[in-house]
């Protein structure tokens, strides 16, 4: 297999393709570039930024943006709003207004009180005309779910081109197609290099959400980007990170984000109820697993 790495959607994309199918990387790169141009909240000219600027009025949008918003609203509904794509004002309030590589390590405190989410309930979608109407004052951030959807779409793309085995990762949201040559599974490191596990993924997708990477100080208080929509503040659930295995990167990303916000007990219950597998790293460093998560084995030296 040949490995390709490139910057995409505010993180790094990693694609593994058969050595003789390097031709498939170009459309994958183009897909990621196209999705970022449409869905990034950090690009003022992106289709999403233009939609956010027109909250309160119906806007006809392209298929990619419409599908992403549709999926994010479906995710919000199925998780009773614990996944909430309309927390952008709350993210800005705590200092995450620019892409993370441009976000300062320390930002000043603000006087404004936190406000809970839930504006997704007032989004009006019309699939026939691909019209989106955000309620006034609402702003959408598709962050994680967009990366998961892009990984799924890229995998569909290489599959449609007749590639039999591939792995696509967008910032850690990864999905696989077929099996690598001479191996019975895709061996994927979950978590960091020191305490992580290597899991043998045969089919489906993995996504990890956590508070360890996108974190900063605001007025001396530690902040991170995973908000609890019930408070509008960074989730303090007792978890450090959550990895979920699901059929698609989109589903895995949503489940990981929601399980993180819910905490060890309710998060595990959610994953069990949805028949997903998960690995939960608690604040104290202990690790628990849910569902058919593989038994932990040491990595070969």
């Amino acid at each position, binding site marked *: *297999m040949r*490995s390709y790495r490139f910057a995409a959607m505010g993180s790094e994309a*990693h694609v593994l393709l058969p050595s003789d199918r390097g031709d498939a990387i170009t459309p994958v790169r183009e897909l990621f570039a196209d999705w970022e141009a449409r869905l990034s909240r950090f690009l003022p000219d992106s289709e999403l930024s233009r939609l956010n600027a027109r909250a309160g009025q119906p806007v006809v949008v392209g298929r990619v943006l419409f599908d992403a918003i*549709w999926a994010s609203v*479906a*995710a919000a*509904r*199925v998780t009773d709003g614990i996944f909430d794509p309309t927390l952008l004002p709350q993210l800005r309030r705590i200092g995450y207004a620019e892409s993370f590589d441009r976000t300062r390590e320390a930002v000043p405190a603000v006087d404004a009180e936190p406000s809970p989410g839930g504006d997704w*309930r007032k989004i*009006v*979608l*019309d*699939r026939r005309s691909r019209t989106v109407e955000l309620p006034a004052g609402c702003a959408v951030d598709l962050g*994680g779910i967009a990366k998961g959807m892009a990984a*799924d779409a890229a995998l569909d793309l290489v599959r449609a081109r007749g590639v039999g085995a591939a*792995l696509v*990762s967008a910032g*850690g949201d*990864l999905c696989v197609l077929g099996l690598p040559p001479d191996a*019975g*599974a*895709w*061996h*994927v*490191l*979950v978590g960091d290099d020191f305490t*992580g*596990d*290597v899991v*043998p*993924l*045969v*089919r*489906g*997708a*993995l*996504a*990890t*959400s956590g*508070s*360890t*990477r996108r974190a900063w100080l605001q007025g001396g208080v530690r902040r991170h980007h995973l908000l609890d929509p019930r408070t509008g503040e960074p989730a303090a659930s007792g978890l450090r*990170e959550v990895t979920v*295995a699901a*059929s*698609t990167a*989109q589903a895995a990303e949503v489940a990981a984000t929601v399980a993180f916000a819910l905490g060890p007990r309710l998060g595990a219950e959610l994953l069990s109820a*949805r*028949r*997903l*597998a998960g690995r939960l790293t608690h604040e104290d460093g202990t690790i628990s697993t849910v569902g*058919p*998560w*593989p*038994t932990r*084995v*040491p*990595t*070969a*030296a």
Partner: protein
Amino acid sequence: MTTSPEGKALARRRHHARLAMLKKRTTIASVLGFAALLGLVTQHAVKGASGATATTAQRSSRSATRATSFFDAGAGGFAFDEGSTSTESAPPAATSPPPVAQSSVS
């Protein structure tokens, strides 16, 4: 053609039985019809009360249809290790090979 008194009585009983059956069916149909009508009226009243949000609620219910299968999308599911399914975990190996990729915190 003449009919015996027993024959007339039998015919009368059958006639009465058919009438009773018809009345029963009519009653059931009326009750069901009324229930359906009541349901429609109630739904209309709820929609009317929600006013401007009716469109959103209607749209959302379409989302909900999709949402029920949200985590099941992609019928293949997920699986670990060779031959295992989403409800089985892999038997532990002695050591795991070096990883080819990483699912890191996004």
